[in-house]
């Protein structure tokens, strides 16, 4: 086992003339919960897509658990569990069949899938619909199913894009607790979120990206301190990203 679970070196991604990610250097340790924050269009999703192997970088390298993803993509991906922000899954399979499908892709033993799959569906409180088609699931239920399937193969790295979208308060609490427990058992969590409260509660460290570059990194306390010991993390975030100026909305309100 290597000490760093994610290592991004000079990572760059260009779309034509536009560089969505510029020279990104980042290291996330094993067992760490890392929050990846930034305003809209900062390059969060592009970075995540490169980490999970959905997108090729223009330059730079990505190492997952010491494995260069460009050299052994499958080995690197077998260590990752990915939870996207929008829960698109196959509509015409049941919850349990979906678990079997995902488990099969990660070469798990069918008996293990059945046992652990049911445990996870129970944990995420969707075991009662495990034999129903996904097309009948609500948004939140789909999100829960994706989360259950993402940790089914016991990944060493969990990459999460906006974890709380579509979850009710009970589900959100469960997820926060789960992330913490997973991290305590050595799983690394790399999480992109706009919910600063979640980052504050769960993350050991956060990195703030803006215009494709890391502009700040450290623990929440470190960042607050560097921004002038502001009380609220929201204010710290806005200050670090240069968005703290109050926009004049009076005209719109009075309209």
């Amino acid at each position, binding site marked *: 086992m290597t000490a760093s679970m994610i290592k991004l070196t000079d990572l760059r991604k260009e*779309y034509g003339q536009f560089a969505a990610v510029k020279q990104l250097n980042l290291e996330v340790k094993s067992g760490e919960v890392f929050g990846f924050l930034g305003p809209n269009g900062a390059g969060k999703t592009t970075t995540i*897509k490169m980490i*999970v*192997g*959905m*997108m*090729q970088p223009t330059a730079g390298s990505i190492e997952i658990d010491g494995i260069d993803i460009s050299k052994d*993509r*499958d*080995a*690197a*991906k*077998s260590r*990752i569990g*990915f939870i*996207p922000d*929008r829960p*698109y*899954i*196959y*509509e*015409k*399979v*049941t919850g349990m*069949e979906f678990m*079997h*499908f*995902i*488990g*099969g*892709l*990660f*070469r*798990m033993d*069918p008996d293990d899938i059945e046992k652990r799959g049911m445990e996870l569906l129970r944990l995420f409180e969707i075991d009662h619909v495990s*034999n*129903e*088609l996904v*097309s*009948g699931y609500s948004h939140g239920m789909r999100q829960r199913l994706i989360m259950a399937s993402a940790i089914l193969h016991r990944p060493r790295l969990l990459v999460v894009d906006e974890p709380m979208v579509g979850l009710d308060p009970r589900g959100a609490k469960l997820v926060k607790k789960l992330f913490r427990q997973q991290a305590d058992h050595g799983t690394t969590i790399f999480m992109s979120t706009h919910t600063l409260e979640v980052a504050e509660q769960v993350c050991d460290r956060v990195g703030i990206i803006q215009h494709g570059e890391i502009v700040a990194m450290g623990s929440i306390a470190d960042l607050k301190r560097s921004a002038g010991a502001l009380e609220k993390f929201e204010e710290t975030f806005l200050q670090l990203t240069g968005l703290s100026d109050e926009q004049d909305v009076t005209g719109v309100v009075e309209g």
Partner: protein
Amino acid sequence: MKDTVHLIRGKVWAARNSITRPSRADRFKTMFFGTLTVVFLIALLYGSTAFFQKLAAEEPFGSLLVHKLVEFLFLTFFAVMVFSSVVTSLNNFFLDGDLPMLVTAPITHGRVYLARFLQTAVSTGWMVVMFGMPVFIACGYVFQAPWFFYPWIFLVLVAFVITPIALGSLLTMFLVRAFPARKMQDILVILAVVLVVVLYFVFRFIRPEQLFNPDLFYGFAEYFATLRTPKSPLLPSTWGSIAMLSPLDGTLKTDGFFYLLQMLAWGMVIVLIGTVIANRSYLDAYTKSQEGRLLRLTGSNMAQALFNALAPKRDEIRRQFFLKEIRTFFRDTSQWTQLLLLMGLVVVYLFNFKALDLDRFAGITYNLRNTIGYINVVMAGFVMSAICVRFVLPSISLEGKAFWIIRTAPVSLRSFVWGKFFFYIAPVFIVSEMLVIASNIYLGADMYMIVFSSTIMAFLSVAITSLAIGIGAMYPNFEEKNAARMATGISSIIYMSASFLLICTVVGTMAQPMRLLMWHRLGHFNLTGVHYAIIALSVAIVLAIIAAAIFVPINRGIESLNLRED
């Protein structure tokens, strides 16, 4: 009324933009299908003219026959319009994606109903108007109708379609209260498919080609003249047929205008009733339409056991790909309704060979019979390409927005694409062989030809499957959910052209070896070294073409998927 117009404005804008700002694919599609439609309309005009000329010549029945035929036609239009209005209304009134926005807007539900009715009327009625016009134009031409008959055709058809479409919409409002909309849509689509297949068979059993036999035609005309069509003054089909023929009968001023106005008036009354009912209970029906889950026929233990038995055993990834594919395929009703239709196509194809009865024709030699058996590989290949374009080609695109699952799994896109290929190859191979062997048996081809043509078809079936998978991977459309719509995209045109070229090249290249071997078998001559060289060279060329058709598109498809950045 202003609200209603505003409600359909969105659809009008969308239609306008797709005409004024078409994508390249749109332009190509419009041109392709536009040309196809024009060709069909011209053929319909010519066919109808010939048919009416034949009817006109059949004294003393001529005029009576035309009246009967038009009554029959309007009755058919009426039934088809009511049925298709129910299917379209279900979607337009209860399932369309923008309905939540409309239902929650501060607009009365009667207005929503009216706007959606107009949309339904246009999308359902255009068919009758467009394809009815050439038939009646031909009728007017043959029976020397006055000039105003031609604009009159349009007026009558438009006035006629309002009533059945309004009835269909009204019926839908009641049906949705009794059954969940999604379930009902599935059932109706299946019913429609069964209806089309049954109608086709009825048409085939009538054997219209026999009407060209003068004796039989006279018998048919006599029979048709005595046939009773329901002719009640209460039926809109009666109003339509009387109004349509009134300029020919010289009763335009008396019957013609009366029935035209009657159709318009009744149409409006039913629309008005629909609006009043919608104002009172649309929301209730809309709420009901949200209930109920989709049909699930494949959840039974027996189906599961069958799928598990069919799935590959050793490789878990291939097994899971197979299971996912077969489950999603059979649970998607839009897939198996089309499957039913294509099965009908296959049966009709074979039925035609059975009905062909070559023995009736003089001069059908052994050679000719077997040559037809060989050329039949081309026809069977075309049928299989049509099946592949609908089922195999969209298989990559059908992953849809869930494609991220494959992209992030520790599975190479190579094994994913080949997994798709291995899933589809078995059914394509079996159906292809069935087509060629069965049609050759019906044709009375000998064993040599059956073995020869089925061997060529075996290679072709593998190649046309991989072409479909490869081209599907090169041009995937992960946004489109409907496989039927994918089958009309630009990739399908590329696939069909490539597939036709492949089939013709392979069958053409193997024609000479087929002829040499057949003549040798019949004892016309012994094969010389030159003959063997020709056979070997042809086989080598065909094997190279087949190998290229298997590997080039699949490899290009994998490369293209690897380069995707969404």
